[in-house]
C-alpha cells in the first residue's frame, strides 16, 4: 500500500526495565502540580489565589498572549503553593487534592452535531485546548488558525515507550469521540499513524487516514510522519496531539468533565517491577518511586530518556507525559574510559565499541555524558539517525548563527526538538541539539510568527 511509511535511518535504543503489561491504580497523590514550563512560550496569568478551592476543570491560569487558552486544574482541591522564580516567573502551582474529585460540569455533547466554532469553544473553556500543539515550532495551537491537517501518532518508538494501544485498551469509544471532535477543527484530514508491525484498535478508528509506519526510532515521532505524509512548508500549520489526550477530549464530550486520567508506564533499569499505573496528569509520583526504586542515586524523568524532563527533585508527572523513566545517575569517573574496544556496557553507533554485535541486547545506560562537549568535528553520524530529508548538521549550524533565511531553507519548519534527540544522542562532540533547535524555533516565533 502506498500509504506505508518505512523509516530506514534511525536507532532503536533498547534499555532494561521495559514496563510489563499490568495496570495498577496508583495510590492517590495528595498534591498535584501544574508547571508552566511544560507549555513552551506561554506566559501564565493566574485566575486563582492562594487558598482558593477549585474543581477539576476550573481554570488556574490563562495564556497572556492568547487569553482564550485556559489551563485547568486536573483535580479538585485547594491551591496551596504558587512558587515563583527570578523576575516573578511562576515555577509551579501546587494543589492539595480532595479525597475524591468533584468536577466542573461542562455538559454532555455530541461533537458530530456541533459546529467547528462550538467544538473549539468547548475545548477552550474546559482546559482541553493545551493538549493540541502546533507544528511548526512545537507550541500550543493558536485557536484562530486553520490547520491544513491534524496528525496523531498512535505509538512511540522512543526508549521504554508507553504502549498507548494497551493504555487505552478499554477507551476505544472515548478515543473515537475525541477524533470526531478533532475532525471539526480542520478542513483537511486527520491522519492517524499506527505501528505497522502490530494490530490494535487504532486500526479500526473511523474518519481518519491511517498510515502504517515501519522502522526504527524516530519512526513514531509525529514530525517524522508529517514529513513523509504531507510536509510543512513556509506559512503552513499542522496540529498534533497525543493519543491519550485524544481520549481525555473524548471523555469531555461523553461525560461532560475534564477527566485528566492517564495510564502511565513506570519503566527503567532502576525500577524493581516496571509496569503500568493509572494516575492523573500533574500527580506527584514520589510514592511510586519510593516503593519501586531501591537506589537513591537515580534520575527520575517525566517522559522518555531522550526528550523527557528531569523531575528528580519534584517528581510531578508532566502535562504531556505518559511515562516515568528512572535510570542510574552517571556521576562517576571511569579510568581511561575513552580507550577503544573496552566498555561494552555502553551503547554506541560507533564500532570502536562492540555494541553493534549485540543489536538486541538491552542496555543499562546511565546519565554520564561519556565525554565532554566539543566543537563539531565528526561528520556523517547525525545523518545516520535523521530520516527526514534534512541536513541536520547544517541546520544546527544555521540555527546557532541565528541565520533565519538559512534556517527556513534548511527546513526549520519541519522539525521539533524531539526530532533532534537522536542527533544529540549520537553526537561525538556532545552537541546539545535539542536545546539549539528549541532556541531556533523560539527565534522563528519571534521574528516570523
Amino acid at each position, binding site marked *: 500500500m502506498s500509504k506505508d511509511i518505512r523509516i530506514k535511518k534511525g536507532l532503536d535504543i533498547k534499555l532494561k526495565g521495559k514496563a510489563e503489561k499490568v495496570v495498577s491504580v496508583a495510590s492517590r497523590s495528595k498534591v498535584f502540580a501544574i508547571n508552566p514550563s511544560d507549555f513552551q512560550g506561554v506566559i501564565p496569568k493566574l485566575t486563582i489565589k492562594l487558598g482558593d478551592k477549585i474543581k477539576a476543570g476550573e481554570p488556574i491560569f490563562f495564556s497572556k498572549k492568547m487569553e482564550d487558552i485556559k489551563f485547568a486544574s486536573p483535580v479538585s482541591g485547594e491551591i496551596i503553593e504558587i512558587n515563583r522564580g527570578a523576575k516573578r516567573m511562576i515555577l509551579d502551582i501546587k494543589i492539595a487534592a480532595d479525597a475524591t474529585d468533584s468536577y466542573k460540569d461542562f455538559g454532555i455533547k455530541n461533537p458530530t452535531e456541533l459546529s467547528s466554532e462550538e467544538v473549539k469553544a468547548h475545548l477552550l473553556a474546559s482546559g482541553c485546548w493545551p493538549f493540541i500543539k502546533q507544528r511548526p515550532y512545537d507550541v500550543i495551537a493558536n485557536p484562530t488558525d486553520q490547520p491544513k491537517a491534524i496528525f496523531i501518532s498512535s505509538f512511540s518508538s522512543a526508549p521504554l515507550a508507553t504502549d498507548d494501544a494497551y493504555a487505552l485498551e478499554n477507551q476505544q469509544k472515548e478515543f473515537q469521540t475525541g477524533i470526531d471532535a478533532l475532525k471539526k477543527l480542520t478542513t483537511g484530514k486527520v491522519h492517524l499513524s499506527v505501528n505497522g508491525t502490530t494490530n490494535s484498535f487504532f486500526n479500526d478508528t473511523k474518519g481518519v487516514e491511517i498510515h502504517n509506519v515501519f522502522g526504527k526510532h524516530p519512526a513514531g515521532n509525529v514530525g517524522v510522519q508529517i514529513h513523509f505524509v504531507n510536509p510543512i512548508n513556509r506559512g503552513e500549520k499542522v496540529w498534533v496531539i497525543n493519543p491519550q489526550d485524544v481520549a481525555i477530549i473524548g471523555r469531555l464530550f461523553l461525560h461532560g468533565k475534564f477527566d485528566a486520567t492517564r495510564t502511565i508506564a513506570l519503566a527503567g533499569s532502576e525500577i524493581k517491577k516496571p509496569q503500568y499505573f493509572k494516575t492523573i496528569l500533574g500527580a506527584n509520583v514520589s510514592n511510586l518511586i519510593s516503593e519501586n526504586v531501591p537506589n537513591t542515586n537515580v534520575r527520575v524523568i517525566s517522559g522518555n530518556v531522550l526528550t523527557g524532563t528531569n523531575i528528580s527533585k519534584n517528581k510531578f508527572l508532566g502535562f504531556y507525559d505518559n511515562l516515568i523513566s528512572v535510570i542510574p545517575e552517571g556521576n562517576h569517573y571511569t579510568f581511561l574510559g*575513552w580507550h577503544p574496544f573496552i566498555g561494552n556496557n555502553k551503547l554506541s553507533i560507533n564500532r570502536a565499541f562492540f555494541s553493534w554485535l549485540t543489536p538486541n541486547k538491552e542496555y543499562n545506560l546511565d546519565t554520564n555524558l561519556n565525554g565532554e562537549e566539543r566543537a563539531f568535528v565528526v*561528520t556523517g553520524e547525525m545523518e545516520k539517525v535523521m530520516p527526514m530529508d534534512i541536513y541536520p548538521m547544517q541546520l544546527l549550524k544555521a540555527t546557532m548563527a541565528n541565520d533565519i533565511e538559512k534556517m527556513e531553507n534548511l527546513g526549520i519548519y519541519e522539525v521539533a526538538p524531539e526530532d533532534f534527540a537522536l542527533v544529540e544522542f549520537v553526537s561525538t562532540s556532545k552537541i546539545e541539539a*535539542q536545546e539549539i533547535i528549541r532556541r531556533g524555533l523560539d527565534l522563528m516565533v519571534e521574528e516570523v510568527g
Partner: protein
Amino acid sequence: MNFLRKQLDKIKPNFDKGGKFEKYAPVYFAFDTFLFVPNHTTKRGAHVRDGNDLKRLMYVVVLALLPALFFGMWNVGYQHFTQLPNPTDDPNFVFPFMTVFMFGALKVIPMVIVSYVVGLGIEFMFAISRGHEVNEGYLVTGMLIPLIMPIDLPLWMLALSVAFSVVIGKEVFGGTGMNIMNPALIARAFAFFSYAPFMSGDKVWVADASTIDGVSGETILGTLASNNTPSYSVMEMFMGYIPGSIGETSVLMILIGAALLLYTGVASWRVMASGVLGAVVMGLLFNAWGATALMNFPWWQHLLVGGFAFGIVFMATDPVTAAQTNVGKWIYGFFIGFFAIMIRVFNGAYPEGIMMAILLMNVFAPTIDHYVVESNIKRRNKRLEKNLKAA
C-alpha cells in the same frame, strides 16, 4: 585507581573557579580527563548519550597510525644500512633486525617527541589564554606530522613547521573543528616551501646521507620525473622497502590502519573509495596518452608509490577539512585522487601531488557542500511553489 582519583580530587580545588591556579585549569583538566572520563552528567536534552567521544575517536586514529609508524622506524634503518658497504666478508650478510629498527627508532622518536611537545605546548597556551578546554585534535596531527616528513629534517625545522601549522593552520580559525585546511599538511607545505633542499631531492630520504658516499636514495616518483625507470619491484613498493617520508612508504601498513578506520567508521569510506577512483581515472587517462615515463607508469602502480595511500587514508578523511555532506564526500575524494596524479605527472619540479591535491580540495570542500545543500533547498522551495499554485 582509587588512589590516583583521590590524589587528583585533592589538588582539583586549586584549579576550580576561585582556586589558586584557576588560570591553568585547562592544563589540569586535560590531564584529569585523559586519565578519567569525567563524572559529567547530562544537564539538558537527552538524558543518555552515546558512549563515543572525541578522545576515543582520536585515539582510534592514533592506533591506526601505529603500524605505519613502526614500519617507518624499521624502514629508516633499512634505507640507511642498504647504502653502507658490506662490513664483513660474508656476501649474504644482513644487518640484524634490531640494529636496523633501533637505528630508525632513535631517529624517529625524537621527531615524534618534538612534534607533540611543541604542538601540545602551543595548544595548552591557547587554551589557557582563551579559557577553554584543550581539544583532542592535536593527538592525531602530532603523529601525522613526523610521519610525512623526510627523516633527515632538522628538529628545529620540524618544530617551526609544527608551530606554524598549529598557530596559522588551526588556532587563528578558532581551534579544532574550525580550521579550513589539514594542519598536518600545512606543516608539510610550510617545510616544503621554506626549506626545499631538506624536503626533496635524492639525499633527504636516507638518514645520515651526508656521511655516506654515493647515496642513491631517490624516490620512485623522483626517478620517473627525470624520465628514468625505477629499480624497485611492485612487491617492494607494496611492502614499503623504498625511500620516502617516514610513514608513507608501506601500503600494507597503511591498509592495516585503513581497515581499522573503516571498521570503526571513524574515517569516511566514501572519501577513500572516491579518492582511489579519481586516481585510477586520471592514471588510465595518462596511460592512454603515454608521452613521458610518468605518463606510462602503470595506473595501478600510482596507487602504491609516493604519499598517495597515506594521504587518502589519513589526511583526506579528516572530517573537519573534508566535505561534510555524503554526496560532497564523493566529489571531494574523487578530485583529490584525480588532481594528485595530475600534479604528479605535470609538475616536474614537484613529483608528489597528494599534498597539494588535498590542500586544494580542503579549500573547495565548503563550496562543494554548498552546492549539495543547495539542491536540498531547491527541493524544498519547489514543494512550496507547487503548494502555492495548488492553493
